[in-house]
Structures are given as C-alpha cells and as structure tokens.
C-alpha cells in the first residue's frame, strides 16, 4: 500500500509543478515545453510502477516500467530491426502513398463536382473497412512482407485525409473566392493560390490523425501474417509466450516513434500555417 500512496503523492506533486511551470512566464520556452510533458510522463511511470508493485499485479498481466526498461536495454538490435521493418518500410511508405492518393482524390473531387458528389459518399465507405477484414485480404494479395502492411496503411489513412482535404478546400471565404473570380483565375490557379493555402489547417488535421493510424495499421496488419521480424510480429509472438516485458518494450518504441512522427508533422504544420489564428497564439 505504501507504494500506492507514494505513487499518488508523487503524482500530485508533479501535477502541481506542471501547473506552476505552465502558468509561469517561462511557459513558452523550449525547456518548459519539453519539461511539462516529460514530468507528466514520468509521473505516469512512477504511478504505474507504484501501482503494479503496490497492488502486486502479476508481471504476466502488466510488467512494471522498470522491467520494460531492462528489456529495452538488452534488446536494442531486435527492436531496431523491428522498427525498420514496421515503421520505415510499412508505415512510412503506406502513409506517403495513402496521403498522396487521398489528396489527389480530394483534388479531383473538388475539381469535378460530379466526382465530389459521387466519390465522397463512396469514399466514406473505405473509411470503415476494418483492418481485421482488409489485412488478411491484403496479405493474400501483396504477400507477407512490408508491402501488404503499406497497403493496409494506405487504406487506413485514406479517409481522414480525404474528408479533411475536401472540407478544407471548401474553407476559403466568399470574398477571397470573389477576388479570384475577378481575376478570372483558372481553377488550377485559384486552387494553388487560394484554396490550398486556406485548406492547409484542415489538411494537416488529417495528416496528424493519420500519423498514428499509419503506425497502428502497420503493426496490427502483421498480426495477420508477416515475416519473422516486425513490431507487430514481435508483439503477438511475445504475448503468446507471455513475454509481456517485450510486448511493452515494442509498445514503447511504437509510442516514441509515433510521437516523433506526429511531432514532425505538427512542426511542419506550424511552418506552413503560421498565419492561422490557432498558430498565432490568439489564446
């Protein structure tokens, strides 16, 4: 019980510290921006460790962070190989292909009203093709290696990017459009100069949501057949062996990679949509 109480205590103190940092004058410094989530995360870990120990949760249900850290420390090469297989080959390539395809589809739908009215309802169908159904089919079609994982990712990220892009392309206000009309801008020009920039905040929404979907997709697809390497392969195999420390080691890698991926897209967003009120810090 003292473990539990201690953990809760640490959590309370850290939350208070975070509130202080966030409210302080230094809240906008890079250090604070880094410190707050780190402190938050560390407290989560302490809480976790404390609860697991205090409540004597068996390691085969939930291992404590310390055990996970120990596993990560000794399994570097395996984790790296899995990461390359799943993230770099599967998720990234699928993400790029899927987002590009969705984007182009949105452009086509935007350009030809006929397509917009026809494609969008159909496009929303693709959204709900559950990975459990698509993954076996795509493994059958594209083989066991990363290509089928990329294909699963393509299907998963397609819809969020499509809806957001279509919505974004409709976001330019009436006067801005009228301006383009007075210039007799071609549809292409008005797209490049007005609609796309105005759509960027929406498009990035889709891109951000898709980062995490891509990673989940690539990992889960490996449950349905894979070579003997990959994060999903390792996770499902280790669950069967009750090697939960390995499972969580992979999850940790996934969470880190996913967060960095998301962060990279969010940074790009900052740079591209600096003009949007949400980025100008209107508070």
């Amino acid at each position, binding site marked *: 019980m003292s473990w539990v109480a201690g953990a809760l205590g640490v959590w309370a103190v850290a939350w208070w510290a975070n509130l202080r940092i966030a409210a302080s004058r230094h809240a906008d410094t890079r250090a604070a921006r880094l410190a707050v989530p780190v402190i938050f995360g560390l407290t989560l870990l302490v809480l976790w460790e404390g609860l697991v120990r205090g409540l004597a949760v068996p390691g085969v249900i939930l291992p404590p962070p310390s055990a996970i850290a120990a596993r990560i420390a000794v399994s570097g090469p395996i984790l790296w190989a899995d990461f390359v297989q799943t993230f770099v080959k599967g998720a990234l390539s699928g993400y790029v292909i899927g987002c590009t395809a969705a984007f182009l589809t949105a452009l086509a739908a935007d350009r030809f009203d006929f397509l917009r009215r026809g494609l969008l309802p159909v496009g929303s169908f693709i959204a709900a093709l559950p990975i459990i159904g698509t993954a076996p089919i795509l493994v059958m079609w594209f083989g066991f290696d990363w290509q089928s994982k990329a294909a699963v990712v393509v299907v998963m990220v397609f819809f969020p990017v499509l809806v957001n892009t279509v919505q974004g392309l409709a976001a330019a206000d009436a006067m801005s459009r009228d301006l383009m009309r007075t210039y007799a801008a071609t549809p292409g020009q008005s797209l490049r100069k007005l609609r796309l920039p105005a759509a960027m905040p929406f498009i990035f929404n889709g891109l951000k949501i898709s980062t995490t979907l891509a990673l989940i997709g690539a990992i889960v697809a490996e449950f349905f057949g894979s*070579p*003997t390497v990959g994060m999903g392969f390792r996770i499902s195999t280790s669950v069967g062996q009750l090697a939960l420390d390995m499972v969580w080691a992979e999850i940790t890698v996934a969470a880190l990679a996913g967060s960095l991926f998301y962060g990279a897209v969010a940074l790009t967003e900052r740079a591209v949509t600096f003009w949007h009120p949400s980025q100008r810090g209107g508070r």
Partner: protein
Amino acid sequence: ADELTLQLKWVTQAQFAGYYVAQDKGFYEEADLDVTIKPGGPDIAPTQVIAGGGADVVVEWMPAALAARERGLPLVNIAQPFARSGMMLTCLAESGVTGPEDFPGRTLGVWFFGNEYPFLSWMSQLGIPTEGGEDGVTVLKQGFNVDPLLQKQADCISTMTYNEYWQVIDAGITPEQLVTFNYTDRGVATLEDGLYVLDETLEDPAMVDALERFVAASMRGWAYAAENPEEAAEIVLENDATGAQTFEHQVRMMEEVGKLLGEDGVLDPAAFETTVASLLSGGSDPVITAHPGDAAWTHAITDAALN
C-alpha cells in the same frame, strides 16, 4: 452448483467438442457444475486470461503453458484429453519438397503465438537455420488460414490434421498433390490441448473437488462426442455464435479429433518428458531454459475423476 469458467484456446469448433457436449448433454449439470465456456481466438492467450482471473481452467498447449510457468505464472496440467499431436507441416508436391532434406531455401509458414516451438525444435534437430538464406528456411508468420499454400506464397504451411489440412483438400487439392510431415512421426511432437489451472486453485479443497467433477464430466463429454460425431458437430454449431461453421467440416473435424483423444485424459509422464526435451532443445532461443519439474503436472484430479 459450483461455478467454473473454461477458456478455450481457439474459436468454437469440434476441437473442443467434448466440453460443448458435456455442457449440452447436461453432464456438467449432473455433476453439480455451472460451467461457462469462453471461446478463444487469434488474439486471446488463455494463459493471460487465467492470470487475470478471467477463467478457472484453460485449454492450452503444453509449450505455451510451460513457457508461462517459467515466466512466473504457475500453471499446472490437471488433465490431458489429447494424447497425440495433430500438428503437421503440409507442402504442395509440385513445389518439389519430398523430405526434410529439401527444406533449405524454402519458405515455410509457421504458427507463432506460442505455437512455434515444435517447429523450431524440429529445425534445430535437422540443423537447418530459420533465418532464411541458401541453406536455411525462410519462415513466415502464418495467418489463420491456408491461403499461403494455395496462393503459393509458401512451399509448406502448418496444418492440423483435423482442420487446416481439410481446408486445403476442400479448396480442390487432392491428398496426392500434398506432402505432409507429421510432428509425431518426427519425434518432435509436443502435447496439445490439455487442461491447466493455477497452483493456488489446487490448494483450495472445494475447487479441487469441483475440478474433479469437471474433468470427469468433460471426459464423459469427449467419449460421447467421439462416439457420436454428427451429434457433436451439431452441438458445436449451435454454440457457434458467428454462424460461420459448416456441418460437414465439423463432423470431419470431430472424426479426426477422435483419433487424437487418449483413453481417460490422464497425462502420460513419458509424453510430458518428450515434450520438455523437445522444448529444451529449441535452438538458439529455447522456449524454456530449465526442466519445469513434476510440479507442472498432477494426476490428483484425473485419478479422483476416474473413480
């Protein structure tokens, strides 16, 4: 009535007909038991379920159970209805595989999730590396079905005598067009569907009593099922909420499963030792590092159940 929860290793099918029959025929009820049968699936590790308190008894394969035991989950085998292994490696004859000597350079489909051990120890016995390359085999983590073989993505895949093998046949491939390697024949068989509980369960006399009645009733169910495969298949179908199984397939499965069943569900210590030996030899990454000792099984329940 005493309540018991049984976690199966796989989805509702004739592989578990004995339990469904016992349930359906009222054998459990007669034994004053109220049994809940939970189907398994690709994402369910019975060991994990029992560790979380989601079940009192699980149907598990021995390699996975022993691995869990070594990881600190004290599983004990209380009965072993399946005396023989049904696992095979099935190859397309046209791929040119005739014997283990043809394996190098091939792609083989293997079940993981704790079911890879028999294969790994066989390969290590044969001295064939499993990391691919010229004289090794390329291993695929096989999904749940036989597509890799039909689509020629693998030269050989894992099958069970009672299930996947027949799916290949049903797909239109004749037995002559197949080459099969039975793990039992290769001496690397491991014990499959056994009943496992946690150590602590056996410390509770009331539970032990319930388990004795449970095993007795279950074996009654198995005996009935083996004798009446069609009725057993019927019962399995009724219990399958997915509505996806077919009667013919289940009847055939029941017939095949009948061939694997032992006399009375009593674990054969010799088979236990063979399994352990094969697991200990499991190549570079052995499943278990030490002999689990005899605490990993008990005859107490079956002995009592037989009376």
